[in-house]
């Protein structure tokens, strides 16, 4: 812009009811022309105070609440919570229960990344086709969840000491079919998007995060790994027997939106690999141990975390020997991954800000809790 032409900064409101904010999330951006000078996030439209509600309910009754935080990854949320309570109470899970948990968590990662990649492609302008493709595949996984647990999204499947039900006989053939279908589908999706000129122009070099900034901003999950830091809780702090499976951490180099997309695709491939190994070596025996319904863990605290689809999903539970948790805190990866949003959107255009927000892959139910 030449020096003669002056424009005045003004505030532009994006959301809360806007398809590209992925829920009821609002960003107030201060723009000068197309350039963003400042961004302010406004959240809390979905706040239900789950942490307070959980203090009034028993440990088992709290499991359905964890479904409702990140409703696109309920299995991972269930898993994180029951791991924290098991750590607190010192409960061991049978081998079969652990393997079923791993299969479910990885299927959930596939389903969630399908949603993330589809919605991200939608944000970059690949209108509806990729999102319909990924939804088609995701629906098959949700069918399996419905068959096993009774619900598509809010599964409520994990229990303290194992899982709620054993697998049905139809489970294995259905998962084998998904494992056969998924890798070609990922190839197809990658061919369609990563070679697309518009997609590349919209995502390469947009929203670049340096490794230092990603670390200092407490980011986790694909957003952190896209910046070149190979940190995956499944490798670094294995839970539920992840140390037995052979898989690799997907890492990006540039920390831009395109790398986040590529990291997610690679994670989907690795998830297929883990599911195949877990299914091949699925042990027999009980799927759960007997745990008293009114569980009273010894006084103390536990912080357990899992690698959810969006990042490190932690649960901090404090017990005072009562039947309900004394303090229940969720470490929400979507919420904390927004820490760097303001810094990486400043200087970009409004259209790029939408792409950056899509690449972070937020779920507003988890941000607001």
């Amino acid at each position, binding site marked *: 812009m030449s020096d003669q032409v002056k424009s005045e900064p003004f505030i532009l409101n994006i959301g809360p009811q806007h398809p590209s904010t992925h829920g009821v999330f609002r960003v107030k951006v201060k723009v000068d022309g197309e350039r963003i000078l400042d961004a302010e996030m406004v*959240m*809390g439209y979905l*706040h239900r*105070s789950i*942490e*307070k509600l959980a203090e009034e309910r028993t440990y088992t009754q709290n499991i359905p609440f964890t479904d409702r935080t990140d409703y696109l990854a309920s299995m991972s949320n269930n898993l994180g919570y029951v791991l924290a309570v098991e750590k607190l109470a010192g409960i061991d899970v049978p081998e079969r229960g652990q393997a079923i948990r791993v299969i479910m968590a990885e299927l959930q990662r596939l389903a969630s990344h399908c949603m993330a990649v589809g919605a991200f492609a939608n944000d970059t302008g690949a209108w509806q086709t990729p999102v319909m493709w990924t939804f088609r595949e995701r629906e098959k996984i949700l069918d399996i969840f419905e068959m096993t647990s009774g619900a598509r999204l809010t599964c409520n499947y994990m229990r303290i000491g194992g899982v709620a039900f054993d697998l049905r006989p139809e489970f294995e053939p259905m998962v084998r079919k998904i494992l056969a279908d998924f890798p070609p589908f990922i190839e197809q999706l990658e061919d369609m998007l990563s070679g697309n000129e518009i997609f590349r122009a919209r995502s390469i070099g947009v929203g670049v995060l340096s490794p230092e*900034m990603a*670390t*200092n*901003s*407490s*980011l*986790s999950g694909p957003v952190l790994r896209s910046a070149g*830091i190979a*940190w995956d809780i499944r490798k*670094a*702090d*294995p839970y539920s027997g992840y140390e037995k499976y052979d898989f690799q951490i997907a890492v990006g180099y540039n920390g831009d939106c395109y790398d986040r997309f590529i990291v997610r695709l690679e994670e989907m491939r690795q998830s297929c690999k883990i599911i195949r190994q877990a299914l091949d070596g699925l042990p027999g025996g009980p799927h759960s141990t007997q745990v008293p319904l009114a569980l009273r863990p010894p006084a103390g605290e536990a*912080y357990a*975390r899992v690698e959810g689809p969006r990042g*490190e999903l*932690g649960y*901090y539970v*404090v017990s*005072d020997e009562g039947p309900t948790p004394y*303090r229940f*805190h969720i*470490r929400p990866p979507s*919420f*904390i991954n*927004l*820490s*760097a949003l303001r*810094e990486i959107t400043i200087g970009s255009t409004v259209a790029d800000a939408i792409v950056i927000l899509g690449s972070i892959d937020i779920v507003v139910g988890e941000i*607001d*809790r």
Partner: protein
Amino acid sequence: MTRQISGAELAAASERLVPGSVAKTTEWTCFLKPETLRETVAALRLDPEMDLVHLTNLCGADYWDHFEVVYHIQSFDKNHIATLKVEAWDREKPSVQSLVPVYHGAWMQENEAYDLFGIVFEGHPKPYRILLWEGFPGWPLRKDFLSMPGGLQPGLNEFSGVARRIAPPVSVVE
């Protein structure tokens, strides 16, 4: 496996870096003194032995007579995690030093603790109620929220008015 650093090891490292910075230790936790919190954590972050670079989790907790702020900080290279705590004893106006100058990731999590517990983080560049709206009565995650002046009551509005007093449990008061 990520190694959980024991309280004694954390206390030794904190005392080595900033003398007189440890209030007390338990088996897996180190309680830092509030006056030197930021200085100690900044030193632990830069120390090559501890290398606590990633503030994973920050949350508050209410224990009736005092508040605790819990920090889970980890190192990628060393693959260990530390649990640090700091206590705030002033019930009317609890305040703790802000860690935003050390970790940018504390920005939103401290605002959340301020929003739900009313813990003021001194030195936070922009404290505001991140989830609730300004003017919301009381601090919802405090244990005595229902008996706070102007606090909301359970149920519909017509049933409000009579405050349900909650007495602190006997076991906590020493």
